């Protein structure tokens, strides 16, 4: 590229720096996909339609953020889908419809379970140094088994106020002011913002930087005095918190638990995180851009639906778009990295 080499050594402007960020390509794809979706579905930007879209997209966003944290630390979680099912089963196992206080107890117990899930995954991957792919494959059966033990068939009880995690309108005693908030800020968006705040606070502290350090180069992170195993465990625990938030939404929505519904999410979260620019090799990518990845993956399905593509072609097109998306972002990030490090050896 002659034009780029001629600028060798010159500092990049702020705009160029932004545009050349590797994650930028996923934003471009996202904008294009939103445009296509809006063209196909004429009321895409209307309030009620947007609220429905957010409710449908929210869970994958939360799960993908969790998966992104794990991937940034150089790990992977194949058990987040069954863990999600497990949390819905624990919540509905503990709750009693006629005892509103049981909801609080259920949340506390499930949160504790989520932390344990994270520790069990992280212990084997961190301290025992077993490949995270197989560890979490093994634990996914464990969570599935426990979930089936608690709830062999879908069902269970839920307190009435749990609806607040899905829709404020459905809760009888909810003040009108909060209902008003719910009409433009649905609960799932609040959960996502909570997740973002949680990650923001973490990323300001040492934990966030350690995650990137361990994911980028575990050996040198270890040699520079970081307890890599502990960081890897905390990555899985943080992931568990995001999965836990998604479980709250699902129980609010369905008022029941199901041991088998979560599994299909697992591989989609990985695809979404990769599309969002998170490197599977670890150490690179932004958790917030993972949201863009999740939106892209969900928009694919929406576009396939509204473009009247026959149902049979759905999976075919979805798979092709994933390859195009990650291929595009890979080529783009290769280009931008060359442009950023112009004149230097990589």
């Amino acid at each position: 590229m002659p034009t780029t080499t001629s600028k060798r050594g010159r500092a990049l402007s702020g705009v160029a720096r932004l545009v050349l960020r590797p994650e930028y390509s996923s934003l471009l794809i996202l904008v294009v996909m939103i445009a296509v979706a809006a063209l196909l579905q004429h009321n895409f930007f209307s309030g009620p339609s947007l609220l429905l879209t957010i409710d449908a997209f929210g869970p994958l966003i939360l799960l993908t953020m969790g998966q992104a944290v794990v991937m940034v630390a150089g790990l992977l979680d194949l058990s987040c889908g069954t863990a999600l099912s497990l949390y819905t089963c624990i919540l509905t196992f503990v709750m009693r419809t006629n005892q509103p206080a049981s909801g609080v107890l259920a949340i506390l117990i499930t949160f504790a379970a989520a932390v344990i899930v994270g520790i069990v995954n992280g212990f084997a991957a961190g301290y025992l140094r077993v490949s995270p792919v197989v560890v979490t494959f093994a634990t996914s059966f464990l969570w599935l088994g426990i979930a089936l033990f608690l709830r062999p068939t879908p069902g269970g009880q839920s307190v009435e106020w749990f609806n607040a995690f899905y829709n404020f309108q459905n809760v009888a005693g909810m003040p009108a002011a909060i209902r008003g908030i719910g009409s433009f800020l649905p609960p799932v968006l609040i959960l996502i913002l909570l997740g973002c705040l949680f990650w923001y606070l973490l990323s300001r502290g040492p934990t966030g930087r350690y995650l990137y350090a361990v994911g980028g180069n575990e050996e040198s992170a270890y040699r520079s005095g970081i307890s890599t195993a502990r960081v890897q465990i905390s990555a899985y625990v943080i992931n568990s918190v995001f999965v836990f938030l998604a479980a709250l939404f699902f129980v609010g929505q369905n008022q029941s638990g199901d041991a088998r519904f979560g599994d299909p999410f697992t591989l989609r979260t990985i695809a979404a995180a990769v599309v969002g620019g998170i490197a599977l090799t670890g150490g690179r990518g932004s958790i917030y851009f993972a949201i863009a990845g999740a939106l892209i993956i969900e928009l694919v399905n929406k576009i396939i639906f509204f473009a009247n593509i026959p149902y049979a072609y759905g999976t075919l097109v979805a798979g092709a778009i994933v390859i195009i998306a990650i291929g595009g972002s890979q080529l783009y990030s290769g280009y931008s990295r060359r442009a950023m490090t112009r004149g230097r050896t990589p």
Partner: protein
Amino acid sequence: MGLFSLDRGGWAFKVYDRNKKLLAAVAAIALIFVVGQFVVSSFLSLSQVLITLKLASFIALFSLCQMIVMASGGAGLDLSVGYAATITAIFTASVMNGQNSNLWLAVLIALGIGLAVGFCNGFLSAYLKLPPLVVTLAMSQILQGIINVYTAGALITGKPSPVLQILAAKSTGIFPNIVFLLVGVAVVVMVLLYRTRWGATLFGVGENETAAFLSGINTRRVRTIAFMLSGTIASLIGLLLIGNMGVAFKDMGSDYVLPSIAAAVVGGVSLQGGDGNYVGVILGAVLLQALLNLLVALGWGDAGKWVGFGVVLYALLAAYVSNRRGR
């Protein structure tokens, strides 16, 4: 971990270390059967052992795909093997139509599908440097999509050729034929990987890509070939699957994918690349299948089965796949 073994005496230690893992796997399999015999009567019967071997053979064959791809390094994995097998079974069913005369055509179709799928996987992962996990996942979605489109317009008809049925479903005396096939495949694989230049190249690329590249090896091509081999083997297994089942159906191969990876890892293949012993992988597959059979025989229901499977797999991985280096 090349350095690791050199520290402990190099080659001799490596041989001992490998055999130690194989012995541990054999001991674990024996333990499962003995425990099974105490808890469930007639678990240690010959027929039970043979059924376990037969079911494990299919996992072990799929694990061969994983082993080759994993050995080539670059975080290689092939999640598309299940649907590559399924699509081959579906497309060849009507071609064979229960006759031996068209078997050659079915094999050609299988080779074509396998090579094409493997080439796409390999090209995207090796040349475009996309993560194999996501590439092969998307590929399996694409294959599933093609199957959906095909089955939306036409019924899946046809039967496997009798030769395939004999090979995959029938037994010679008491031994299932698929076990003989697996032994043959194992011999070929061991020779190919450990006694040929190409095998050394494959492991070399997996062990240290930079070193292999600097010694003049086209590492991308080696990795692409590894994926093409994986796809081809998966497609050929598709022929065996339809031979075993007698019919082709939409999801016949998907249940083997993740167990095939687990069996390879339990069998000592490193996901980092550059390592792998197919005998260990076969033992890993037998171990997983025996464990699953035991948990089914115990009659704890689905919940107990999956909790048991998860706990034992976790413990197994912790016990002898783990690589503790003072952390």
